[in-house]
């Protein structure tokens, strides 16, 4: 009986994750998380349809 070949590891996911990780790191270096935090701490009434 012919042996089943070992499944190949896909590289595309690792490349994709690395690229977006780099993008996130660039965002962190630009101090974006502090802006996100400022926004998340406020209740934006018009954003939820009030006012």
């Amino acid at each position: 009986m012919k042996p089943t070949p070992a499944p190949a590891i896909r590289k595309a996911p690792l490349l994709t994750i690395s690229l977006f990780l780099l993008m996130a790191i660039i965002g962190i270096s630009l101090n974006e998380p502090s802006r996100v935090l400022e926004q998340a701490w406020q209740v934006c009434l018009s954003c939820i349809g009030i006012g």
Partner: protein
Amino acid sequence: MPELHWHRLMNTIRKWVQALSFLLTNGSWAFPFTRTIYQGPLKVVCSPGLNCYSCPAATTYCPMGALQQLLAGLRQALDNGQYFFGFYVVGTLGVIGGLVGRLVCGWFCPFGLFQELLHRIPSPKFAVPRPLRFIKFGVLTLMVVILPLTIVGDMGIGSPWFCKTLCPAGTLEAGIPMLLMQPNLREAIGLLFYSKVFILLLFSGWSLVASRPFCRTTCPLGAFYALFSSVKLVKLALDRERCTNCRACHAVCPMGVRFNESPNDTECISCLACSRACPFAAIHLEIGGLPLTAKDRRPLGKQA
């Protein structure tokens, strides 16, 4: 482990993960006393699913809300020398998408869980027309990116159009609770709020008779994760040698995927319903190309 036991275990785990994810992303229960939203450091963490960060109990930020806000304020930020293009939010979402893609919808999204629970209520059930799936890509492009960037006021600041005019999760988790907690806000509600309540009722009613209609037709977060359907690390895979095209996977899929025809379908949320239903063990979970579930190697037709 026998296939049947594996599938039962995975189904139980998925339900627990959904419940835990809901509790973790909405874990701040001090709001009845504080009468406002959580304002701690955890709000710098991205919620993988659609979960409004103006919800009083929300402990994380909503990636769709944050992205719209960053894009809406981009002109002003650039004027102030701040380069807030949304790299942090898109980068985080991309990492999640590259890891698991729309598995988030099936395992982690609180609004997905809400629709799933509504669908369990006994009632006549109907299919969602397949062409409607493309609407969500338009919502992502137009309401999350283009409109917040281009329609700006005198101060150069735009609006988060998806949150403001469409998002039913925001109405359910933030709009209604805020009105209950702060009665003085009731004077400020108008046509916009009523239209959003109507949209929430529409999707809630639709969820009773169809499976996950918001995920399938409108969710921009689902649309973003769908872009990773071919390149995500964790995915369901089809063993073509074992598949007999019996279509058992068609009937059980909550997203209307015909898995034997399109194993990389953008709608697949990796809920494993098809894998459970397949009588030939032709569908299995894999990580980076390596099978996670032990493939049943018994001859075709001899499985459970």
